[in-house]
C-alpha cells in the first residue's frame, strides 16, 4: 500500500511533502512522545500524532517514516510545513481523533 492509497481511503488532506506520496506504507505508529517514536517506530510506518511543531519532521526524517498524519484537524506550524517539503515526507491531516484514525489505519493495513 502506498501513501496515496491511505489518503484516498482515510480521506486525508495533504498539507505538504507531496514528493513522498508514492512512499510504501509498511505499518503505523501512534504516539505524541518524540523519544518514543525515536526509540520504537520503524522505517516505512505512518506516524499518527497531535504534535504540530517542526521537530516532528526532524524525527520523521531520521526514522524515515512513510508519512505523518496530524489528527483532529490541528494546523501544522509553517516551519513544519517547510521541513516536510524539504524532506519530501508527506505531512497529512485528518479531522478524526487519534483513536478513530489509528483504528481505521489498522483495519486498512490488516484487512
Amino acid at each position, binding site marked *: 500500500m502506498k501513501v496515496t492509497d491511505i489518503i484516498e481511503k482515510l480521506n486525508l488532506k495533504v498539507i505538504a511533502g507531496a514528493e513522498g506520496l508514492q512512499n510504501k506504507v509498511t505499518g503505523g505508529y501512534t504516539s505524541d512522545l518524540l523519544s518514543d517514536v525515536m526509540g520504537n517506530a520503524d522505517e516505512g510506518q505512518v506516524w499518527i500524532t497531535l504534535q504540530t511543531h517542526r521537530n*516532528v519532521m526532524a524525527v520523521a526524517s531520521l526514522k524515515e517514516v512513510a508519512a505523518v498524519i496530524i489528527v483532529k484537524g490541528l494546523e501544522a506550524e509553517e516551519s513544519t510545513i517547510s521541513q516536510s517539503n524539504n524532506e519530501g515526507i508527506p505531512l497529512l491531516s485528518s479531522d478524526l481523533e487519534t483513536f478513530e484514525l489509528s483504528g481505521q489505519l489498522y483495519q486498512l493495513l490488516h484487512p
Partner: protein
Amino acid sequence: MEFNYEVEGGNFAKAGYAASSVKKVLKELNVDPKIIKRVVVALYEGEVNVVAHAYRGNIKVDIDTERIFIEIKDEGPGIPDINLAMQVGYSTASAMVREMGFGAGMGLPNMKRNADTLDISSSVGKGTVVELTTYLVK
C-alpha cells in the same frame, strides 16, 4: 574522520541537525543500515538533551574502520544523580519541553539501548560529557 557540531541550548529549531548530517555521512560510507539507525537514535537523543537542558554544547563524531565514537559535551546544570537520570520515566524537563513531546524520561535510556557503550560524567553547575561508542566490526 572527525566531525564537529555546535548545539545551542534552547534552540529546538536546530535539534536533529547533527544526527541528520551524521546519518548522511554514514550512508555515504555504506555503513550497515541497522548500525546507522542505532547511531542516529542515540545521537538525536543526545542532541535534544543538550537543547533541552544545557546552555550550549559540542558534539564530536569520530569514525574509523572499527567504530563510531561520539562525544557530547555541554556547559549546563549537570546531572546530580546519574543513576536516577538513567531511569525510564525520570525527567527534569520543563513544562514547555514536555508539551512538545520531549522530556518523557526516555532520552538517556534510548541512548543506552542504541549504543554499544555509554559513559556519562557530570559536574553539577558545570556540565555533562556523554561518550557513546558503536562498533562497526563485532
